[in-house]
């Protein structure tokens, strides 16, 4: 049985369509990341699952039951918000207790204490329990916010960019920790983000959401290598996938200024958008010349920006190779690494 199923869910706000025929399923222990740019409808998707928004059309099923019109309280899912984390007037302990004291739950006082203790231990925030929520640092606050979600052991976690407001180091640290936590709790997670590194590192499966539509559902690896649309391609990877416009002349792709790019298949369209990852660009073996414009050092490797036949192309190069600005190279890309999207 799937933990969550969305069937053809649509939602409009006035003239804008936030969700447009979304289909989605999440397995019982699956960690699904919904990836998309700002305004893609990610938050609306989560809110619809949580019951804070009612879909105009379609069905929301949780663990096999139709929950489309159930109240948020009845769904037993936990939602961690992007901008809100805690009630500032309460202490950490009170914040953690708040979901447990909800009227329907009827937990004994001892059990409440135990659960708070358990969650605090899990998140390593025991020493913060009696501090006022106002006096926490960003990272502490986010841990407590997640504690609020896990403390009541919901059937499904919904996370709305929970790490976005943290600094880079903390973000990476928590990423690993939370992935591990989800595995231990054996609870499915729907995690929303616009950060591709987050998606790639955490997800069992990634759902690419653009303009309210699901564009692609795939494993991180597949999504990385074979994005179904240029938009998905742009969203993933740093630096992102190169996208250049080419024309076919005989069996070869031609760059905008007419230089040869490389071999094209026979059935290839006459005009196309070519996508290829920077790490698949080699700096030699090509048919035409390119100029190195910028060299960025990123520790283990370097990013080289090339002006190649009227297009800008990013490539990565190991530090072992000497390369300098203004140097002329003859780059090449193996045809099997190129994704071809026809243009008309």
């Amino acid at each position, binding site marked *: 049985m799937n933990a969550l199923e969305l069937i053809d869910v649509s939602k409009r706000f006035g003239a804008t369509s936030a969700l447009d025929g979304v289909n989605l399923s999440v397995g019982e222990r699956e960690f699904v990341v919904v990836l998309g740019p700002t305004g893609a409808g990610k938050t609306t998707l989560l809110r619809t699952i949580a*019951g804070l928004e009612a879909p105009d059309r379609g069905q929301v099923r949780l663990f096999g039951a139709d929950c489309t019109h159930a109240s*948020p309280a009845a769904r037993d899912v936990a*939602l961690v*918000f992007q*901008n*809100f984390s805690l009630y500032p007037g309460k202490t950490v302990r009170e914040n953690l207790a*708040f*979901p447990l004291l*909800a*009227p329907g739950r009827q937990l004994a006082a001892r059990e409440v204490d135990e659960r708070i203790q358990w969650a605090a231990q899990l998140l390593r925030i025991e020493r913060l329990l009696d501090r006022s929520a106002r006096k926490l640092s960003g990272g502490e606050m986010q841990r407590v916010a997640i504690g609020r979600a896990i403390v009541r052991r919901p059937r499904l976690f919904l996370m709305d960019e929970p790490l976005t407001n943290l600094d880079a180091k903390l973000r990476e640290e928590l990423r690993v920790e939370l992935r591990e936590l989800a595995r231990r709790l054996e609870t499915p997670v729907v995690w929303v983000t616009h950060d591709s590194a987050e998606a790639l590192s955490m997800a069992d499966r990634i759902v690419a959401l653009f303009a309210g539509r699901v564009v692609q559902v795939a494993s991180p690896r597949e999504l990385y290598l074979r994005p179904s649309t240029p938009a998905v391609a742009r969203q993933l990877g740093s630096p992102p996938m190169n996208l250049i416009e080419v024309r076919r002349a005989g069996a070869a792709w031609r760059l905008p200024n007419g230089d040869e790019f490389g071999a094209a298949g026979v059935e290839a369209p006459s005009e196309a958008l070519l996508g290829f990852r920077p790490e698949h660009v080699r700096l030699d073996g090509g048919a035409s010349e390119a100029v190195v414009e910028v060299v960025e050092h990123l520790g283990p490797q370097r990013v080289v920006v090339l002006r190649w036949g009227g297009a800008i192309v990013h490539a990565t190069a190991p530090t072992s190779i000497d390369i300098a600005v203004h140097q002329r190279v003859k780059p090449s890309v193996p045809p099997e690494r190129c994704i071809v999207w026809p243009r008309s």
Partner: protein
Amino acid sequence: MKWLRWLVVALYLLIATAPLAWMGLSSLKRRADTISPHAKVLPAAEAPSDPTSPRFEATLDAYRELNVVHAGAQQSFWRHLGSSVLIGLVSTLASVALGTCCAYGFSRFRVPGAKDWLFFVLSTRFLPPLAVVVPVLIMYRTLDLQGTHVGLIVLYTVFNLSLSVWLMKGFLDEIPRAFEEAALVDGYTRAQAFVRVVLPEARTGMAVTAVFCLISSWNEYGFAMTLNSSGAVTVPAYFAGLQGNIEGMPWPQIAAGALVFVAPIVLFTVLVRENLLRGMTFGTIKQ
């Protein structure tokens, strides 16, 4: 610059408090001393023999006489104060409660024509009460509410609503929606979320709103005078009614009564003073 600031404050403090100080002095006098052409400024234990002396015999008679039904009135000061307290408190509670609910509705839900409604709510504040008092009088006569506590309570509640709605909307807009949504997802109903999460966060605003509603209904005069020939007469209407008192005004009792009358409001304001400073920006300065 510092001395200039000092000077401004000190000067104004003098101007602002002098009338109050004189009021305090007047409340300790006998009537003849309040209208003496030789100003009596120094309280003394005994009456001076010289009528032109600036001394006067201090007495608490004025305060004691507050429980006397003064000529020209139908009830003693304390009974009028009772009316004021009842009317002021109930109408304040009602205004704040209704205003908070209404502001919450406008703040969190999509109400059709919300902008127009809010404009309507604000515009009711512009209209002089005297422009509506005759129809209200007719209405109250029909409903048999003229001269009753309930009548004034309803009226004050209504006429404080615009202030209450607008102030509360400013406060509620600043409370993130996620506060309640989190509670909803946590298993609370909307009503529970409102009570458990929104109200505690809004209490600063409610306290501020209550102070302003209370000040205005506590001191209201126009309706109190025109709608009540007898019955639920509040303190301002009672005192103002003594004007033109044929035997002259009972100044010491008026001074004493005015001081007693303002005391509860001062007390409330002191209690919520810091909230006043935090809260009165109507959401115009965002932090």
